[in-house]
């Protein structure tokens, strides 16, 4: 029951974060989703048997080794994906925003060093067009 709740908590929190604004929170959301799904995979092997599976371990109590192997590779792949996503967050001239900011004001500390907003084409994500449109409309922050 505790494991099921943990999985639910991780998935729920992960979904919440990936739906936020900004690449870093999306990455953190993916990290949590990975945790949740990895635990789910382990749970699929059964949680009643918890003795590490080595040669000679009693099959009646040994944990299922197959999901463990899956999860092990999944963790490393998730790390690689995290690195790639984070790379996209820090290239270009703007920060890791993933949306055009005509919905709310832009009040992030440390952004005052950016004076121009003509770099719409250099943005790290697919929002370049939106940003260019926003700057054409003369919206400033």
């Amino acid at each position, binding site marked *: *029951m*505790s*494991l*099921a*709740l943990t999985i*639910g*908590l*991780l*998935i*729920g*929190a992960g*979904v*919440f*974060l990936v739906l*936020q*604004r*900004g690449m*870093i929170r*999306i990455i*953190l959301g993916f*990290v949590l989703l990975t*945790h949740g799904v*990895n*635990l789910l995979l*382990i*749970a699929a*092997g*059964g949680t*009643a048997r*918890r003795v590490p599976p*080595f*040669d*000679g371990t009693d099959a009646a109590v*040994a*944990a*299922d080794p*197959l999901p*463990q*192997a899956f*999860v*092990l590779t999944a*963790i*490393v*792949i*998730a*790390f*690689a994906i995290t*690195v790639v996503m984070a*790379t*996209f967050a820090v290239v*270009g*001239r703007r920060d890791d*925003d*993933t*949306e055009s900011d005509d919905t*709310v004001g832009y009040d992030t500390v*440390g952004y005052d*060093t950016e004076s121009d907003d003509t770099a719409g084409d250099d943005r*790290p994500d*697919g929002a370049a067009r939106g940003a260019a449109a926003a700057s054409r409309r003369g919206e400033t922050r």
Partner: protein
Amino acid sequence: MTLSALLGASLAVVGLTAAVSAVVGRAAGWIAAAALAGLAVVVGMMGPAIAAGDVVRESIPWLPTIDVAVRLRLDGLALVFLLIVLGIGALVMAYSARYLSSRDVHRHTGYFVWMTLFAFAMTGLVLADDIVLLFVFWELTTLCSFFLINRSGRKASAPAVRTLIVTAIGGLILLLAVALMVARTGTTVLHEIVAAEAWSADPAFTALVAVLVAIAALTKSAQFPFHYWLPDAMVAPTPVSAYLHAAAMVKAGIYLLLVMSPAFAGNAAWQAVLMTSGLVTALLGGYLALRAVDLKQIMAYSTVGQLGFIVATIGVGTPGALAAAVLFTLSHALFKAALFMVVGIIDQQAGTRDIRLLRGLSRRMRTTLVITVLAGLSMAGVIPLLGFIAKEYVLGALLDAGPAPVVGIIATLAASLAAVATVAYTGRILLGAFTDDASDDAPEHPDRHRVPPFIEEAPIAFWVPAAIPAVLGLVLGLAIPLLRPLLGAAAGAAAGEFYTATFALYSGPTVELALSLSILSAGVIAIVARRRLAPLIARPLLPVTAIDIVEGLRRGIVAVGARAGRFGATDAHAPHLALPWVLLGVLAVVGIWAAPSAGAVVDATEPWTDALLLALTAITVLPALAARSRLVAVILIGGAGFVVALWFFALGAIDVGLTQLLVELLTVVALVLFLRRLPALFHRVRRSRTAITATIAVVAGLLATIATLALTGRRDLSPAGQAFLERAYVDTGGTNIVNTILVDYRALDTFGELTVVAVAGIVLSAVLAARRLQPERTPEVGARGATALGRATDNTLPVRVVARWAAPVVIALSAYLFLRGHYEPGGGFIAALVGGTGFALAYLGAASDTSAPVRWPYRRLFAAGVVIAALSGLWGLAAGSFLKPVRFDIPLPWGGEYGFTSALVFDLGVYLAVVAIVIALLNEVGGVLGRRADDREEVRA
């Protein structure tokens, strides 16, 4: 020679020609010609037996579970087409050896590959006795023609795409027909399908499939309303056109119609579609050929029109008509191959193909003239050439077309009119190119200067390939009785019943003969009166051309697609990311509704520590959701990662827990590297939006909990897990079962995974090479020299001291974990991650980014990792199968032995790839390489 050997040999020609052409250039055409001619001779030697009624069959298993096999079958019909494909192929290849440019030896390899591949595809198509195999070869011809047209320069792109669109649509329609046929008849064997009872039992179904097959063939054979692509494709080099028109592409459609004919002949829909389309095309082709001024365009419209005769005749469906269609196909292949090659010769020698510019070639190019006259007269249907006999019997077949006499009369009249046009445009070719006839002259033509003042006859090697089919048209016309057995066998195969051909040069004073004579007379009158008829013909039939319509359709489809795409388009990530979760939620709700009960829980008890872990998860995760600071969120999520690692330990997954622990460590280090280039706080969003996302998140979490409860813990150890526990040591010699799964049992999986890691590292470096990093946003405390906190060299002293002592320990630990991985917790992943933390420690201890001692050639490490893993795989391949572990014992100097396995070598590949991504990260994002960031890097200074 067996049929599979024949097919294999025609494929081998591709490799042979490609290899030779890479060395000697265009002369490779001779090799290809010799090879294809040799195959044609081999096939020809089977001719007498096949003509006597033999059928050669062969079957090689391919997809046994769905009973699809490489079934090959050689009957009379296949033999005739095979001779055309290989024979014309050989001639065209020999012709290419002179036609292609002698400069730039390496430029022609692609041409030869696609042409010989085309010959292979056609060989496979006519030999296929499995309808799936036939479809595969059908599509291969489509691809070959696309690439052959497309590679002839920038102007060729649009025609090539139009060709691909129409023929690919035809291919899809054929696929639909194939699926219907296989589903109804329950077999994929072609000759069993056409002989199935279903066709006579269910006329409506038969009509549907017949029309689908007919449409597929009409697209391939460039018949109305798909006729436009063939003249459009004239941008391809002349040998390509010669092959496409005479033997390959368009003849594939004819072959399909003939081979399916036993199933559909006599079906009203089949007859109506084929006769209408064929006759309309014949008339249209003749009319358009009379208007064209480019010799190649005239030939193209001529092909379209001539194939119209064949299609209409196949539509008649009687054995006699099918025999006439086969004969016409053969005769067309011969004269059209000759004519196209002649056009190429004229083009090369005179510098133009425009009949408004050409004049007086008869004085200089006598041999070419003779070839053109021979082939042209065969096309016009002049006695005693093969074309005359073919046209006689086609007219006869159309005259007999049922069901009512009026059908036959209308069809014959239409065909006769088209035949008159054929005679007229044959005259146009001969008079326009070879005489001083000035009826089409254009003295002010801009290309006038391209015609050289002195035109010479082509060298013998250039015109011989054209002369052979032209002469054959005469010889075979005179020796027609010799062809009777083979053509009879071919028609018998197409008719599904025994048939004896009765072709003769003169068969008495028949209606057909009278028609032939009238056609020739009318044609001659049309030639004589060409100037008076010109204004009538020059008037366009319709205000738009077929190409306009197709281009309009294409643009329209693209526009509709763009408009449809706009509904789902958004520049923000969130809507894209939300949709899968909403749909998954719907799926989960449906699942719960559909299957409300699950199996019995095996063991519901859990240790009290689980609740503690849940609490720890909540303590780290929930505040992270509310955090406004990026750094706080990253630290909290990192904490959650450590709790998850504890979860893995608690669940008996030691290796997984260790991996999770180390990855989490490195993830935090990595994210902090990224964070220093980002604002301190997250972006804000509206409250209403947070409410929506929170709702989606809560529902997703709830459903995930329910799914976990419902779908796990309800069975005992899985059979796979059981087997691994029992067999791992026996199979692999390893005791750490999880590790043996990774490097022994599922090594291919792991191999794919280490490749993913390597690719991720390459993406990282490629992106950063192309795009500038954002500037660092150094916090206030880092102000250089202002406070003690700003003195980096002094501040990092403790870490450096620790690192100096820890480094050897980390290296030794990493090596130890690596070597023992097969037996105890450890292995390539964990060892590499430990090594990675060593690099991270060295990086953190450096006084500045660029002085960190982690500047390693990570790209080479990635490459080495993948290559070493692949080599260990090949080692296994040598021992039986890819990545199979090879084991042997190495005696140790102090006694005992070390159980070595090639899985360890594989694990080394894993190690290198994983360690490389950590180094890549530190080098590229950590600033070790000193890669130039944005212009205002030194913001604080």
